[in-house]
């Protein structure tokens, strides 16, 4: 422990004496600033205080100086822990205070300039500030560990502190910033009346559709759609999962691929494909008209269309959750039921189905939440059927520019999501659903009752055909001059987007899409592993450690997942456009946004897998002298491989396909593929949009294979730990 105390003190001192205190213009990683070092812009804290007269930085420095004697106190000296704890807390408080009190325009509170005179300004914090803040945070953790918190394990305390700090800064703070605007009027004053007026608005809660021809409120619309999609995707996912695990169907593999494919499809694409097939001039509509004389109509626009698109998009998630659970059910339980004279259907109803409850609940919940937050499909297909996600978007960017209204609607959306979480919790209750124990199970899975089997086939096969048809349409459309009009085959869209030329200077990527594709790949490739690491670390802390406030902590990590992307995007600008943390216009802000938006998937996958791994494995490692970090690296991580794969894949795919959150965060230097595609759709260039999407699908497939190869399989042999691990499981 003494070693770590010295290390973090050294990092703190480096942050104070050497590293530039403020953000470097244009970038820390652009070495040009070295030539200016240490002028006003690049000076360290010490020089800022001494040479630049920034006296307000001095107290934090004193806190570090005060903490330094701890490096020389003995392990058994109780003063060491106390000193670390209080000096660290004081340091963080002082840093936060000076950071928030003074920004690039001066004092942030109006009264202060009267009191202290006008004047001091400072830019956003830089690497020096980062090093010192981290140092303080870790000194506090070491102090707590020294007092026996978390069994005295510094790694655990440090990780908890780090994750809490990150979630606090990058989730709670921005979200609080924007949700506060719900109780402010347009002039920025507190006005609770305005909140209730917006909250209770008839266009949100109206129930006119029940007794008249008028439409119902957007909240009911959203709820109705979400319930349909949640239930539908769960049933479809279940059908696929049952076929995959409980039948001898010959084309299982193919069926599985078809059921998972939509996960890697960029937004709009499913909606566009549906229009190309079922729209008024769609291919299938045309066939129906020519063969059967069914008049062309716009029936697809509205609830039906959105529900269809969302079912296509979210069934894979339900499938992945359910297949883990279905595989996990111990066959001996079903065999036990059969020996008690329960026939096929009876066994399924009374044993199999109830044991799948957690899977069903989680699948429904995910479908429900995803449907609520989905923005792309309603945008393309909803017609006159309004939902909260699009309404929020247009409240922010539409003609009215009413951010308060967006915040109120976001609160309603969040309320629905939380209610769903709570309902799931109640439904599952405290019953035990443990079906995988340490002992091997030699039973054979019971085949499905015949009627159910045919039902599953009857649902899954047409659905797979539909999915296949959509993808054929997408790929074909990307090779057509103008889909819906001129069906001559062409490569022109690919040439526009992805042409590569040989020039005297070497390869030139002259296509218009290359830039955004590289950026997207870069950002996704950076954010996916970070997301997985933070997600799995959080899962480890939640599942394996005990600390105060664990529930609240868990809820906090789920928060950014449940809030619509548009709201997150605007909240990030509001929070990170000004000092002390200035991030807008950078690639970092995109990466951070992805990390904290997608982290819950890693958390869920991690918790699900960890709950199947005997805790005494960790303890055995600890008693053999391995610290928590070593234990995590040598024992936990290798066993977490399935969770790691799903966390990596999912965060990569979501980073590649996110739309609503990044519309406000992309910049000229960091433009993302989806923003580019949305732009193409807006300009009516469907061909290029679809071609680009096809390229993204291929890229993501390649990335998934690469991740599989990289992480590898979990080596278990047969016994102690069950092999089946659900990919994601919320709740």
């Amino acid at each position, binding site marked *: 422990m003494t070693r770590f105390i010295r290390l973090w003190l050294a990092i703190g001192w480096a942050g104070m004496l050497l590293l530039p205190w403020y953000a470097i213009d244009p970038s820390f990683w652009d070495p040009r600033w070295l030539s200016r070092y240490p002028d006003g812009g690049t000076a360290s804290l010490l020089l800022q205080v001494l040479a630049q007269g920034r006296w307000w930085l001095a107290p934090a420095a004193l806190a570090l100086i005060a903490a330094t004697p701890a490096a020389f106190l003995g392990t058994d000296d109780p003063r060491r822990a106390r000193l670390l704890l209080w000096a660290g807390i004081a340091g963080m408080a002082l840093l936060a205070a000076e950071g928030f009190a003074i920004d690039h325009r001066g004092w942030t509170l109006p009264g202060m300039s009267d009191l202290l005179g006008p004047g001091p300004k400072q830019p956003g914090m830089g690497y020096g500030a980062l090093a010192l803040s981290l140092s303080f945070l870790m000194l506090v953790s070491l102090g707590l560990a020294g007092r026996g918190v978390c069994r005295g394990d510094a790694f655990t305390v440090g990780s908890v502190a780090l994750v809490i700090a990150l979630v606090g800064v990058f989730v709670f703070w921005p979200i609080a910033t924007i949700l506060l605007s719900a109780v402010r009027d347009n002039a920025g004053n507190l006005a609770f009346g305005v909140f209730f007026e917006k909250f209770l608005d008839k266009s949100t809660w109206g129930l006119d559709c029940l007794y008249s021809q008028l439409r119902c409120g957007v909240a009911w619309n959203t709820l109705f759609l979400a319930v349909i999609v949640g239930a539908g995707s769960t049933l479809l996912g279940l059908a696929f999962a049952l076929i995959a695990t409980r039948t001898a169907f010959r084309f299982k593999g193919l069926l599985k691929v078809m059921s998972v494919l939509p996960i890697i499809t960029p937004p709009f694409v499913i909606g566009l494909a549906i229009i190309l097939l079922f729209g008024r*001039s769609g291919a299938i509509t045309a066939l129906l008209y020519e063969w059967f004389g069914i008049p062309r109509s716009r029936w697809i626009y509205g609830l039906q269309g959105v529900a269809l698109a969302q079912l296509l998009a979210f069934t894979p998630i339900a499938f992945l959750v359910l297949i883990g659970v279905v595989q996990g059910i111990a066959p001996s339980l079903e065999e036990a039921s059969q020996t008690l004279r329960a026939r096929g259907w009876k066994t399924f109803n009374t044993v199999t189905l109830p044991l799948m409850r957690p899977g069903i609940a989680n699948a429904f919940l995910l479908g429900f939440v995803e449907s609520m937050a989905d923005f792309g499909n309603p945008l393309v297909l909803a017609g006159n059927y309004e939902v909260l996600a699009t309404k929020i978007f247009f409240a922010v960017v539409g003609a009215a520019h009413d951010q308060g209204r967006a915040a109120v609607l976001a609160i309603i959306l969040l309320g629905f999501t939380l209610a769903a979480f709570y309902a799931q919790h109640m439904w599952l209750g405290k019953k035990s659903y443990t079906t995988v124990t340490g002992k091997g199970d030699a039973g054979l899975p019971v085949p499905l009752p015949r009627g159910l089997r045919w039902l599953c086939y009857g649902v899954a096969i047409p659905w797979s055909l539909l999915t296949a048809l959509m993808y054929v349409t997408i790929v074909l459309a990307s090779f057509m001059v103008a889909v819906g009009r001129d069906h001559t085959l062409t490569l022109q869209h690919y040439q526009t987007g992805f042409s590569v030329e040989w020039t005297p200077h070497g390869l030139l990527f002259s296509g218009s899409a290359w830039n955004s594709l590289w950026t997207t790949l870069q950002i996704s490739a950076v954010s996916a592993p*970070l997301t997985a690491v933070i997600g799995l670390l959080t899962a480890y802390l939640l599942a394996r450690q005990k600390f105060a406030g664990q529930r609240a902590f868990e809820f906090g990590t789920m928060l950014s997942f449940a809030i619509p992307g548009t709201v997150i995007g605007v909240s990030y600008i509001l929070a990170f456009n000004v000092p002390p943390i200035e991030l807008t216009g950078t690639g970092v802000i995109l990466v951070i946004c992805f990390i904290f938006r997608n982290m819950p998937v890693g958390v869920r996958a991690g918790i699900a897998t960890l709950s199947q791994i005997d805790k005494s494995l960790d303890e055995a490692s600890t008693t053999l002298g391995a610290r928590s970090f070593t234990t995590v690296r040598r024992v936990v991580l290798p066993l977490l491989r399935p969770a790691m794969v799903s966390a990596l894949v999912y965060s990569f795919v979501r980073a590649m396909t996110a739309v609503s959150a990044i519309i406000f965060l992309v910049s000229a230097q960091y433009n993302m593929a989806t923003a580019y595609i949305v732009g193409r759709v*807006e300009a009516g260039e469907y061909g290029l949009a679809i071609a680009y999407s096809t390229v993204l699908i291929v890229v993501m497939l390649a990335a998934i294979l690469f991740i599989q190869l990289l992480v590898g399989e979990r080596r278990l042999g047969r016994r102690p730990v069950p092999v089946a691990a659900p990919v994601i499981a919320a709740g």
Partner: protein
Amino acid sequence: MKRLMASVCLAAALFAAPAHAQATKELVVYCSVLNEWCTLMVQAFEKKTGVKVTMTQKGSGETVTQLRAEAANPRADIFYGGVGDQHMEAAEAGVTVEYKSPMLAELHPWARRQAEQSGFKSVGIYAGALGIIWNTEALAKKKLAEPKCWSDLVKSEYKDEIQMSNPSSSGTAYVALATLIQVMGEDKAFDYLKKLHANINQYTRSGPAPARNAARGETTMGVNFLHDGVAEAAGGFPIKVAAPCEGTGYEIGSMSIVKGGKNPENARLWYDWALTAEAQNLAKGAKSFQTPSNMKASAPEQMPKMESMKLIDYDFQKYGSGAERKRVITRWEKDVGSLPK
């Protein structure tokens, strides 16, 4: 703390930090016309002045949201393109600054008026008239007559054949509301809109959507800016456009300088240049068929001449103000939008 926490991990990825433009040879443009157009402009400007331009393309609504969110620490210098109302809105929100370009004299009177009405916080760079667009094949198949006037659109045979964008989300639709009010008077205009409601198959969320959907046969007719229809026709779709016989309104695509931008000199350089005929002639090369505001610039041939249309004397000051906008949109939502279909 912590610009950084993440950055530390990112060290390997070598991310550049924010694009703080320095007061040297840089310029940040938020561009709200078609991406191709934006790109052509940027390339031409860079070639001419040597200023390095960083451009982000977004819809005008998104851009105004972004400008407002960034107001405490502006990132952009120029807000280029997009419906004039959004520029009026930005001016009203105080996120743009006044600038009187020496180029004003070369502009069409409507563009100069836009500048005056905004207190010189913005200026017209192009105009586009509102009108009716339709798919000739779909119309022929249904054996319907071509629409020529606003009054044609409420005919019962057009039931469920027309699309228009939704005023609560689209600036185009708002221009349509304001136009109808100015043509007919407010109460009559709302009576008209109620009748039109029966013929509308969908209020689309974005402005150019009706033209696009008509091009692909998803609707027969639409109320749209004519240049969007012309662009579809240029793309090979069977689209025809008409300016209504009663007279029609128009948008003035505008440009503003962002308040507190880091490169004010370069911003003015761009501003003056963007008003030249040379710069405005670039639009045609990017499938954009609006009428340029510089009198010396050549209007695209595919586009019906502004002079041949019956244009109303659009009151940008009144209908560009936030309060009026809110009032009109709210009335539409209440009186028309909530009617049963």
